[in-house]
């Protein structure tokens, strides 16, 4: 258990961020439910936030992003909220129109 004696570093944060990101991607790629895709997007954004905060944290590097990172993370959170609202609205609208939220049915944009 020697890794418990070591202080963690930026890499660990990046790794967790990458994992959340990829989970989100896979979630987006495999869910047929529109809301599931939305949830995947949330996970992706979370991974991104984690990266920003990791780079901004003074614990890991002297040359950190500092306040910039924090603020970008804040904006991301806010934008995610906005995006969730819009996407939900779209999903509800789609549901009302097609009586389904299966994105595989949503192929009207097919060329």
């Amino acid at each position, binding site marked *: 258990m020697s890794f418990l004696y070591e202080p963690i570093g930026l890499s660990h944060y990046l790794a967790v961020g990458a994992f959340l990101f990829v989970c989100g*991607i896979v979630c987006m790629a*495999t869910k*047929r439910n529109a809301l599931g*895709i939305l949830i995947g997007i949330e996970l992706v954004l979370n991974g991104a936030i984690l990266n920003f905060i990791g780079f901004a944290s003074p614990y890991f590097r002297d040359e950190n992003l500092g306040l910039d990172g924090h603020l970008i993370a804040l904006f991301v959170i806010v934008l995610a909220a906005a995006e969730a609202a819009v996407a939900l609205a779209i999903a509800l609208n789609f549901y009302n129109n097609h009586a389904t939220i299966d*994105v595989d049915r*949503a*192929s009207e*944009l*097919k*060329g």
Partner: protein
Amino acid sequence: MQTLLPYLPSLLAIAVLLPLGSFCAILLGAQWLGAKGKFAGTLATTAVLASTVLSFFSAGIWFTAHPAGAVDHAAHEVPPVITGHGYTLATLAGTNVGINYYIDALTIVMFCLVTFIATCIHFYSTSYMHDELDDVVDQEALLEDGESLHRPGRYARFFQSLSLFCFSMLGLVLSGNYLMTFVFWELVGLCSWFLIGFYVERTTASTAANKAFIVNRIGDFGMLVGMMALWGSLGTLNFGDIDQQQGIFSQVRGEENHYALKVPDGMVRLAAGRQIEALALHATEPLTTEQLAAKVNAEMPVWREANLGYGLLIIAGLGIFCGCVGKSAQFPLHVWLPDAMEGPTPVSALVHSATMVAAGVFLVARSYPIFLPEVLLVVACAGCITLLIGASIALVATDIKRVLAYSTISQLGYMMLALGCGGWAAGVMHLVTHACFKSLLFLGSGSVIHAVQTNEMPQMGGLWRKMPWTAGTMLVGCLAIAGIGIPSVFGLPIGLAGYYSKDLILEQVYAFRSENPLWGSFFFAAAAGGACLTAFYMFRMWFLTFWGEPRAAKRFDRAHESPRVMVVPLVLLAILAVCVAWPAFSWFGLPTLSRSIEQARPAGIWADMHGALWHITLPEESKGHTAAVTSPVGLIELGAALAGIALAALFYAWKVLDPEDVSRSFHPLYHTLYRKWYFDEIYQAVFVRGTMALAHCASLLDRLLIDRLVDGLARLGVGLARLSDLWLDRQGIDGLVNWFAEQTYRLGSALRTLQTGSLRQYVMLIVASTVAMFLLISFWTLALTG
């Protein structure tokens, strides 16, 4: 008879070739061999009988020249061996590859064993396969309209394959190098394929045959790797020395080294290839090859000290053992053997219990001089796991032949365990005794199946009244395999054949345990527990078949004792199963089994072995024969056997316990055992499906990638030609512009299909292109920097 010794190889060669002659005769002349090929049976039986006579005659010659007992392992003498050269396949830069022979007491014993059992089974088959003389209605092969299949009988074909098998098996025993061993190894596999798939119309039979062959090929792959390691480093595949040319055994265990195991120079040299190259490249002066060789020889002790080449010897040993795992149905390649029971019962008796599957054990015994302790530990582990898996599945099987098949697997595991623990003679002895009683048991089960026309034990019961001879001989077989005997604590040890060999094995494992407590404890527990399980499942089978009340009245009424030509081999084998291992023969001046085997003990296998990489010590075999070991072990063994028999009787004879109830309360375990630990399912899902998936990938890659690329290139060429055509014909800018417009339109139409409208695909495309872009950029930067 000593004067005949020089003719021994020729005698044995004739014994090998006689069945081949019978095979060729039946293959080419089946329609002339009497009515419906009936004479084929006689021909094959005569051939193998002649081989038996020759083998026993050779044994007489051999043991007159080298009396058994004269060589004792206490004396530490090199065993007598006859090696020689048959004929050359190819000459490669001064090295010969050819057919050689290697004859020692082990060869002789195996010859007598194989030919004798084969003769019994040939006699038995002439009656058992009687149906095949006329047209056959195969109930198990259904046509598409649900009718049973009618086909001409294949009596002659059966004996043809049986003859080929005898030839290959005897050749395998006689062969004097690994290449020849491999050749016959494959040939017995082929015969096994023919015989398992004898009822070619049954899909189950041909599938089982394919499974057996392919699983065996997996083992053969390992054997090829082992052979490569040996050939690449030692430049020979011969076992013994032939005409001044050193064989593998003397290179590994040289006389100058007092037959102790040493990594041969060739292996060190091969493993030190990089160092040698550095020597050659970094020498201050250019070296001639001779100078380089001298330098290498000077460095040799240093490299050997650094264990260079040790890994290579391990690979060689493991590779050879891998072949044995396949052939002897050891874990994890044991799955083919139970399915192989699709073949006719005499085949199961000869090929899949007594001889071919024992070939793996034989080869381990033969290659013993080159096995390092590390390899032997792997052998022991494989044997131990196999022993438990086989025994556990046999507990719940209901098909009488499958019980015997799993029991075979388990007993083979015993042999491997013994060999892996350093018990060379114990393993070989169990091989011999097991061949006797297992072929007896299989022939007995064949007799039962012949009488009641089913394999399922729940539909038998009470048969001893109808078939006393079969029941009696099978009881002898069950007692023998359970290892019933009076241990030496009570004075003179005396028992059935299985008692002696199993006792030896347990003693050796016990001695092994005192040197290596951790491994040894597991092994001993498994071996003793396995003995108990063996007794239980064998008597479960016997009680279910012969004891109690008949459970299927119709079948019981039809049952009858088999004809004499089937009973006589049973009785002969039963006699063998009782007394083949008795030491009392020495009172009459005959060679006993244990002394004969002892005579073949390879040079050097009389001292403890220590592993260089892992801490492991293999005790030499006489350490197991001290009173401190034999008395507890004898008691444990007898106790285990009796406990097993008593348990079986509680369940199936006295009906004190209800087996249904037990199986219900341990349902998950019962189910796992019933489904054979899910090995088939797992292998199917992982290996078969995986390979097929890979195969389809390869085929798709061809069609979708390479072909399209080529077609695309061709179209590009055509397009370019058309383009230049336009240019040449001065169709001018207009044509070009139109062409571009059309192409753009086409491109657009083509790209349109990319717009699937599926969100998920978009996501995938984005991610995939991100990955691709990253890879491109990193390659680019790498190319720039480096």
